[in-house]
């Protein structure tokens, strides 16, 4: 019994890790504040949904469309909303992106109403058995995607010039400019990549989750919790943080009370913020 709870928690953690990966890049590395993070997830999920409904496209196949689409949308949103105010105060960023958040939700509400929409694929409830435990396939796939995405992002940041430029700009902006880095271009690319990862997340979430206009909000809050917990900008921390939150949620859902499970990790969030704002792994580092 406890084993299954843990397995569920870990798999849930994979979901949270993937949702948070983009945020840890955007907020953790680039220190760009984006209160609309969840709404991009919502858009990606709707995109996947409609590709399925209208063209019968399997969500895993639609990754090929959704990810580049979200990359472009992300870069566009950066250019139009964030770049003009890049040097303004933090609070300006918070409220400007909060406004974007509301606007996107508003569009979704208007176009598609508040109904919950889901897709059912042949493998949505597919399960494999590992001894007494059972593992849901789509969730396992998400978990593996999370690991793959982290590895890919890590290699990108470590090995490519663009990736190094992103890290350099995050560490010392002026020095990066003196190396010839075009800051606004790099920020835009980093933001776009973060949102593209969110696109991947949306696509692989559709087999098991339903989409509705405010689905992004809760995921986004969890993402912030995970990012702080795992250390800002720490890729591995996003995975560990995600798993911790997933397990905590799963365990408290069973052993404390289902209605309280979100409350538990919010309380953990505030405690972490107060006691150890740099997260589990101390100083946030991308190695």
């Amino acid at each position, binding site marked *: 019994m406890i084993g299954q709870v843990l397995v569920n928690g870990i798999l849930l953690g994979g979901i949270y890790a993937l949702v948070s990966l983009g945020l840890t890049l955007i907020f953790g590395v680039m220190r760009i*504040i984006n209160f609309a993070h969840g709404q991009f997830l919502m858009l990606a999920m709707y995109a996947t949904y409609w590709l399925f409904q209208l063209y019968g496209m399997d969500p895993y196949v639609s990754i090929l469309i959704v990810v580049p689409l979200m990359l472009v949308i992300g870069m566009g949103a950066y250019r139009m*909303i964030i770049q*003009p*105010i890049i040097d303004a*105060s*933090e*609070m*300006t*960023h*918070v*409220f*400007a*992106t*909060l*406004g*974007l*958040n*509301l*606007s*996107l*939700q*508003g*569009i*979704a*509400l*208007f*176009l598609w*109403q*508040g109904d919950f929409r889901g897709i059912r694929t042949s493998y949505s409830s597919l399960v494999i058995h590992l001894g007494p435990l059972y593992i849901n396939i789509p969730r396992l796939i998400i978990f593996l995607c999370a690991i793959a995405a982290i590895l890919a992002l890590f290699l990108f940041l470590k090995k490519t010039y663009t990736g190094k430029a992103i890290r350099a700009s995050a560490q010392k902006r002026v020095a990066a400019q003196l190396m010839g880095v075009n800051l606004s271009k790099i920020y835009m690319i980093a933001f776009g990549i973060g949102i593209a990862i969110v696109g991947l997340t949306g696509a692989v979430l559709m087999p098991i989750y339903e989409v509705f*206009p405010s689905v992004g*909000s809760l995921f986004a*809050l969890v993402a*912030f*919790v995970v990012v*702080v917990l795992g250390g800002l900008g720490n890729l591995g921390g996003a995975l560990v943080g995600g798993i911790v939150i997933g397990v905590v949620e799963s365990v408290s859902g069973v052993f404390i*009370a289902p*209605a*309280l499970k*979100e*409350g538990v990790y*919010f*309380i953990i*969030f*505030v405690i972490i*913020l*107060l006691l150890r*704002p740099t997260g589990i792994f101390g100083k946030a580092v991308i190695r």
Partner: protein
Amino acid sequence: MRENRSMAIRYILEEIRHPKAYLTLIAVGVLYIVVLSVKNPYWGDILTMTFLLGALSLSWNILGGYGGQFTLGHAGFFGIGAYTSTLLLIHYQISPWIGMLLGGGLAALIGGLIFYPCFRLKGIFFCLATLAFQEVVKIAAVHFRGLTGGAMGISIPFKAGLANMMFQGKTGYMLIALSFMIIIALVTLVMARSRFGYKLVALREDEDATETLGISTSRCKLLAAMISAFFAGCLGTFYAHYSTLVDPYSIFDMMLSVEFVIFAILGGVGTVLGPILGAFALVPIDALMRGYLGQGQQGVSFFAYGMLLTGVVIFLPQGILSWISSPLNRLMEALSGEKTRPEPRAGKIEPQAERAEKPSRSMQPTSILEIAGLDKSFGGLKVIQCLDFHVREGEIVGLIGPNGAGKTTCFNLITGFEEADAGRILFKGEDITGLKPPNRISKKGVARTFQIVKPLAGLTVTENILAGAAERAGSIHEARMKSRNIVDLLGLWEFRDIKASSLTLGGRKRLELAKALATEPTLLLLDEVMAGLNPTEVEQAIQLIKKISNRGITLLVIEHVMKAVMSLADRVVVIHHGQKICEGRPQDVIRDPGVIEAYLGKGYQYAEG
């Protein structure tokens, strides 16, 4: 004392004669008349909600707008108040009017307990923490069904009567909501003009600079948070009795918290009228749209609010009020036939008796500042090592040394912005090493200026100086008088109503000095005040500093402009690589070979031949 009180009364009477005051009274009167004449329940509802949300936004504005601490969990207090008074009514038959105060009190208490530790969090993290707070309260309300009725909430049986805060028709509700809004607006107004108000907006502009003025920023924020939460809690009770249902999803709604913020930002954050304007602009339109659009309304509403928020934040950050304030001011001037801002009656200003020369030193001049064995490293780099020097009462001591020698770090250690690794700092014989936060040291009589000046940008020159005087003054009028003295002393009279952000560098440096002087310090630390000034301004600054010294204030001055050091300093301490390498009269120090080497490089004196 009696003088102060009569001055206060005269001040108020004068203010009332002013167009701003009587126009406001007229507007309030009109609102009440409108309320009493509206019979249509549809409009009654819209007006009630407008007043209620306006009042809630006003209460948010106290901490958010004036204090600059933007919270996104204000509805949490709204709900706490609602649940508290409702439960007290249902289980203990306590009158809602009393329950309201108790609910407000509980909200204030919880607000204080939870927000106080959160204030250390910067910007977005503070926002997130307040969001998390509201979510937790909501989840708790849903979960503890026995107490709160869970997701379905609690309903209050309808019983008309003032004692029960319930009425037939909407008029009673409208009156109460409007009155609440007026009361909170008044409280905000009074607060804004009080010493506390000036301290609050000061810390909003620059926390470090405010700490330097001896103001405990954490205590101010705490008080603002509690006042803000109290009012939100009280309004919660009203809402409970208006809607007769208290349920977690309606009352702890994230969108509601965001709305309070939007109204304030749209109307003008940090003003009394702003949240009111914002609510009046948006709530009725939103309600009307619901009528026309039906189904799609929520989407359009979200979208519109979202675009407004982003748009205002980017294009009109000071809100609608900034748009209309100049035409409004001109209207006032036209009506009253005099300048919009009445100058506070000067009263009797006793110019400080200035001594023509420095008083002769007493036999045993007291030690004001003593630094012994100070060490400070950043990472692996030792910035200050084994630093010793002292400053005696009435002296002007110059602290010089090449770039990177550790001088500003030294100031930061003395004023509590950094903590020393080893060594002692004594102020007037008292050990202040490691004393935190900085306001505790400032309160003892140590003032400083910053190398990169930190004006309270959004405030006028007068308000800047008032913030400095606020801590020590016994009343707002004493503070105003002292500020007036300082304004005169530093030649800032013509700039008194100009926003600090519009001053030239020279003006800002003078303002920095003025703020520091307003705290009536014993020891004044000046960090490169001459940097960036032209020769005339340097000369003016030198005269000013001499005047300050003649008032008995001890000065420790970091300077690179040698001319200033030569004419001002009684004694000079030279620091290089974080250590004292020389000390003595200015003319001796600059001939010292070690000093020459430190500044110009080793071979220099030999190159002279």
